[in-house]
């Protein structure tokens, strides 16, 4: 069963239907895809950073000191 979507327009809560409902669902789907892609990118960067620090033999605090 599809959950109903409610929107607030000028202070009035109303169920979203038709084009409005579709536009919200489309936007939220795309926004969630973007968010997941950004999280994946952040995680990949963190892994690459840890690998680089290990190769250089530095701790994160030492690396931060270098660029401070």
């Amino acid at each position, binding site marked *: 069963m599809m959950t109903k*979507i*409610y*929107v*607030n*327009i*000028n*202070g009035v*809560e109303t169920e*979203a239907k038709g084009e409005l409902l579709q*536009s*919200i669902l489309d*936007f*939220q789907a*795309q*926004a*969630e895809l*973007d*968010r997941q892609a*950004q*999280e994946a*990118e*952040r995680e990949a960067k963190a892994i690459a950073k840890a690998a680089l620090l290990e190769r250089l033999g530095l701790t994160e605090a030492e690396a*931060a000191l270098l660029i401070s």
Partner: protein
Amino acid sequence: VANADRYRFGYRSSGRFRGFRSGRRYRFRRSLRWHDGAGLAKASGTDLDFEWSTPASGGYVLIGSTTTFSASSSVSIDSLFDSTYTNYKVITAFTCSVNDTNVFIKLRASGSDTSTNYVNPTFRFNTAGSTSEEGSTSSWKIVSAGSTETNSADLTIYNPAASKHTTLTTMGYGSYNPTSNSGYGNFAVGRQKSTTSFDGISIIPSGGTITGTVQIYGLAI
């Protein structure tokens, strides 16, 4: 106007001003004259010591009233922007129904959201030193929000009603994911590249719903 509300004023047929206080009648010495845009202000603690003065200008002027929303997937407010003010302040605080939620603003015209032509450099950071840049072309991202703590954002929107580019500066705090202790700050700037005259905004989470309040102020000069 300090103390002025203790007095009631009326006109006499002669055009003179008179005031009443505690059943006693006070007569003003000066004839009433038209003071465009001015008001009577109490000049000192002495009775009857009023003078004409121009009300202070500038400041935040609340447009309409605070909008309260509950479990909404989108919050839209129309008829906010017109030629009365050039720039506007938006203050919003809310909780989300789910964690890991990005929250966005869209401009509206004639009752519809505008979903293209946004430029949105955004910088997200936390106390652990994590930083990232992200943005959107279909809206302006304002905060990375969560469910258990209040998320908040302070936006300034410049020239929305003018038929030229609208710009934005904002800062916000979002709890995002309290279980992993990852509250985030957001600095964002933005431009809406179309020359549409906008009159409203929508606040939209990337998932779930939001519950909270929003106030919109015109910035009087």
